[in-house]
């Protein structure tokens, strides 16, 4: 079974689970930027929550299929068209041989996930297959999809069932304004007292230097009290660092493993999937929570999701 790329869009990659346990070798997590939308799409087609799917960024994308397939689309896309028909997001959908699958551009949010029943073939890397673009590893030849690329897929048996939809209450709200809850980073105190307060009082906007590695946050202009250079230290997806120019940046799934700028805050694991929906111009409000509260929120979120998705984790 194959999917042929007709219109590749801005940055369309194969993404599933993150790489775990290799950060000490300099290997970042990679994997789906919005792991919740990935899991919801995979579930509809009967895949494991972190199976590899097609991650689509902002732009519209067209693919054609040669064999009957079951598919599901979640995330930011405005519409899904299969052949001549408009189909719903968050629903199990079937395509017939020759159908064109047209995934609409994002009107709000940033990324969409197209899951297909069966196993999408990706370059095997450290036990996974997600694309790590910077080093050209994993996924489809280590790169974003281009026109005429043919994605291969090990077909799963399709038994046509209808009416399988993500329950309303579990559909993430895709927006251009997010509240992101953070815990305090180890070097928050390197900021002036005013700046330490300001980051939680003033909203910030995602700037233009935005990709899977990180996003710059504008509108805060933070002061660094303690200008002393810190030594390179471990960072993670969701870490917010502040360089000397006072414009913080938020690390994404492809973030490098260590960094030399003060780590002022950390987006909590429960909210980190929202990073995948940020684009230049998105508005963010950072809200501080305690570690205890963050753990509670994460466990509550999982207990809300697992009855539908089965055992899973967010990353």
């Amino acid at each position, binding site marked *: 079974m194959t999917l042929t790329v007709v219109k590749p869009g801005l940055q369309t990659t194969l993404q599933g689970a993150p790489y*775990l*346990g*290799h*950060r*000490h*070798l*300099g*290997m*970042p997590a990679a994997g789906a930027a919005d792991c919740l939308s990935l899991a919801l799409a995979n579930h509809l087609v009967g895949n494991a929550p972190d199976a590899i799917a097609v991650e689509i960024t902002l732009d519209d994308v067209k693919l054609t299929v040669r064999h009957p397939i079951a598919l599901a689309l979640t995330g930011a896309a405005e519409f899904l068209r299969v052949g001549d028909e408009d189909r719903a997001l968050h629903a199990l959908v079937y395509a017939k041989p020759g159908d064109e699958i047209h995934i609409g551009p994002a009107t709000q949010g940033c990324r969409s996930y197209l899951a297909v029943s069966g196993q999408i073939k990706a370059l095997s*890397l*450290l036990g996974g297959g997600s694309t*790590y673009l*910077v*080093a*050209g*590893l994993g996924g489809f030849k280590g790169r974003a999809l281009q026109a005429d690329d043919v994605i291969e897929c090990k077909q799963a048996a399709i038994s046509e069932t209808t009416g399988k939809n993500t329950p309303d209450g579990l559909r993430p709200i895709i927006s251009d304004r997010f509240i992101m809850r953070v*815990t*305090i*980073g*180890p070097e928050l105190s390197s900021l002036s007292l005013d700046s330490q307060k300001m980051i939680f009082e003033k909203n910030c906007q995602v700037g233009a230097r935005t990709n899977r590695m990180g996003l710059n946050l504008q509108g805060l202009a933070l002061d660094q009290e303690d200008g002393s250079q810190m*030594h*390179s*230290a*471990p960072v*993670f997806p969701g870490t917010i660092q502040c360089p000397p120019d006072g414009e913080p940046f938020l690390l994404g799934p492809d973030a*490098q*493993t*260590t960094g030399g700028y003060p780590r002022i805050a*950390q987006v*909590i*694991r429960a909210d980190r999937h929202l990073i995948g929906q940020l684009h230049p111009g998105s508005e963010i409000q950072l809200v501080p929570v305690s*570690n*205890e509260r*963050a*753990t509670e929120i*994460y*466990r509550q979120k*999982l207990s809300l999701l697992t009855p539908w998705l089965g055992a899973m*984790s967010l990353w």
Partner: protein
Amino acid sequence: MNGFDIHACDDWLTCQLKSLDTVHAASAVVRKQEMWLEVVSGLDSIAVQFDPARITPVEAINLFREHLSKPQTSRGTLAAPITIPICYEEEFAPDRQWIAQKMGLTVEALIEWHSALQCTVTMLGFMPGFAYLQCGEDVTEIGRLPKPRQQVSAGSIGIIGNQSCIYSFNSPGGWPIVGRTPFTLFDPAKDEPALLSANQNISFRSISRSEFDAISRELSR
């Protein structure tokens, strides 16, 4: 706080340590414990990531402290010292001329000096297999490039102050470049994908362009 300077976020914690030696010893001990999803070293700190569905940050701090308090009998299995061949020819060493000038050396003397350095891998980071090395003497004249290069080739050897680095992939980069090794720094098909590991001792060997090509050919077979 039991002597440890620990800061926890909701799914990772970091501990400030005195020296790079302590960092390497601590990471060897902590890495043996299975509950940590990641164990990452910095230059003077170590961080571990955990699954907050399984343990809370407070539990993680207690466990981590317990692990660090274990008698550190071994310093982990230290990788055998390795000699890295470097070709210092101009096409691989775009910055060798001005570096030599700043250090008051001829290009030949610069090559002789650099290839005789004894280095230790401080950590891997930036990209998979990218190695930061600490090399004996401090050369304060050599700082970061004022404008990073768009493209630095895999295998390039950078130098800033008393640190060197080896680029593992073609990537942008701000280190002045003095040479290139034909070795592959990160090969995901191998059981141990990274050629180097933290705390490993490294020496260099100056090679000619033809030897560089021969090693490259050998490796790509």
